[in-house]
């Protein structure tokens, strides 16, 4: 047993977002201000009470935490920030829960803002991609010497291996972006809302083969924020608390590759038959995969949805290709996924837009795309971290 149990001790008290768009031509600081103000308003919390912040994607694309504190005149007792990667969403919420439990802050704004349109040099691949310059290589497999660049290329390497190892096809993978686009069509905040077919997916150009353009998420502008506090404090605020029942932290090591679970056999991973076993997030929350009413995942590239499903035991390795067919992951299916439209179609706010959607779903605020009777929703990722939320 851990020294103290965090199950249901922390909650999301407020969630908010800026507008999302391809080219808003607004400062990341401006977008972040919209998201923070919207989250505070949602919680019914005065800004003077906000005393903590964690940012997961800062300069030069997003606004840094210390910048926001200064420019927006926030008095933060505690703040932290990860380096500019999308993978730290659950980490930030977990650390915020620890900060709140330890009395380091009472209300922690967790967020990212991005303004890709304001950037002079493209960062997602090419000479502006600092990942490729990291000693010992980039974390998505970047090796610019051989032209290997961009997070999507690492996902393409995983997709090719998946197709080869399990006999799956790109045509099956189409089910992921097709489903998420259907969801985005029901979401007025989503950037891309026009439905497309599996055939359209197959006909779209290759970016990094075997991934097509429609396997790639958006590169866009926007900000999204949630406010973490104790469950006790959350009860006294404007909206019903969304409790954090389960947490599984982000692993690292030689057996990990950001887009693949252990045993998959890319980068320097070993090759073995992965067995999800009983992921700790379910043990902590006291539920299992069958209790999950909706699943949200970091879908920067469509293949990541398959990897997340297999990593967390929704199906066995190699089975996600079949599991995701015939509407199972669509609204009304047995396991609706990324009902907001995901990074693929709503917006790429580093997963923070997904957290905002989870909160709204659990409050029943989602209108035409509401998951009926949603009580337990999971955030679970190809790279192995997870959160389980409930009303």
């Amino acid at each position, binding site marked *: 047993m851990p020294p103290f149990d965090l199950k249901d001790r922390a909650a999301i008290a407020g969630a908010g977002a800026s507008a999302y768009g391809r080219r808003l031509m607004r400062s990341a600081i401006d977008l972040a201000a919209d998201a923070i103000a919207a989250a505070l308003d949602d919680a019914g919390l005065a800004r003077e009470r906000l005393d903590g912040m964690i940012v997961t994607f800062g300069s030069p694309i997003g606004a840094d935490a210390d910048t926001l504190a200064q420019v927006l005149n926030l008095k933060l007792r505690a703040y932290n920030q990860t380096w500019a990667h999308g993978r730290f969403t659950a980490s930030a919420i977990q650390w915020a829960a620890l900060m709140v439990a330890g009395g380091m802050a009472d209300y922690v704004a967790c967020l990212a803002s991005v303004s890709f349109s304001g950037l002079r040099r493209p960062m997602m*691949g*090419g*000479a502006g*991609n600092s990942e*490729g*310059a*990291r*000693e*010992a*290589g980039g974390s998505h*497999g970047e*090796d*610019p*010497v*051989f*032209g*290997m*660049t*961009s997070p999507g*290329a690492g996902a*393409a*390497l*995983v997709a*090719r*291996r998946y197709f*080869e*190892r399990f006999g799956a096809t790109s045509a099956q993978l189409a089910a992921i972006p097709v489903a998420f686009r259907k969801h985005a069509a029901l979401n007025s905040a989503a950037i891309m809302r026009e439905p497309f077919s599996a055939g359209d997916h197959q006909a779209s*150009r*290759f*970016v*990094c*083969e*075997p991934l097509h353009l429609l396997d790639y998420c958006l590169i866009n502008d926007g900000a999204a924020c949630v406010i973490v506090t104790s469950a006790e404090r959350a009860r006294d605020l404007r909206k019903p608390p969304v409790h954090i029942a389960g947490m599984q932290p982000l692993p690292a090591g*030689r057996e990990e590759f950001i887009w693949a679970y252990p045993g998959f*056999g*890319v*980068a*320097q991973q070993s090759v073995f038959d992965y067995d999800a076993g009983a992921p700790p997030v379910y043990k902590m929350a006291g539920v299992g995969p069958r209790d999950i009413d909706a699943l949200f995942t970091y879908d920067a590239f469509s293949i990541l949805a398959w990897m997340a499903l297999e990593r967390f035991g929704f199906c066995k390795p190699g089975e996600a290709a079949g599991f995701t067919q015939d509407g199972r992951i669509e609204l009304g299916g047995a396991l609706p996924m990324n009902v907001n439209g995901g990074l693929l179609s709503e917006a790429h706010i580093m997963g923070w837009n997904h957290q905002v959607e989870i909160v709204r779903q659990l409050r029943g605020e989602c209108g035409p795309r509401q998951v009926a009777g949603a009580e337990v929703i999971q955030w679970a990722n190809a790279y192995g971290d997870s959160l389980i939320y409930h009303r």
Partner: protein
Amino acid sequence: MAANQDDYAKPRPAISALNRPYWDALRRRELVLQRCGECGMRWYPAAPLCPRCWSRRIEWTPASGRGRVNSWVVFHQSYFRGFDAEIPYNVAEVELEEGPRLLTNLIGVGAGEIRAGMEVEVVFDDAAADLTLAKFRPRRGAA
């Protein structure tokens, strides 16, 4: 020398004190990997100690240069001016006989002919006057 460096339009490796022996060996047309003097492990990328037993008794020793294609991608989009003329170009992950995997470009094989498990061997590509790259081609006489 300087003129040659300027002529090379592709990204250059990030050579550090740690991985310099790898790049220096390629200049001599040798593919080398680190090897642990205690437990015999071979690995990539360069590490200051053996990743398995943490021994500091490590050395750079020649690798066979033979391996198999583990996975691969084909770039249809340009990210670097230096690669523009080669689009669509492949990037392959080759698993060496010794175990570690290297990213590389396969030469002498069309993008549509690349197969998982294909046996390949190293080719030393003198990319610039001061830079040799380890590329791979289908192994002659391999099944």
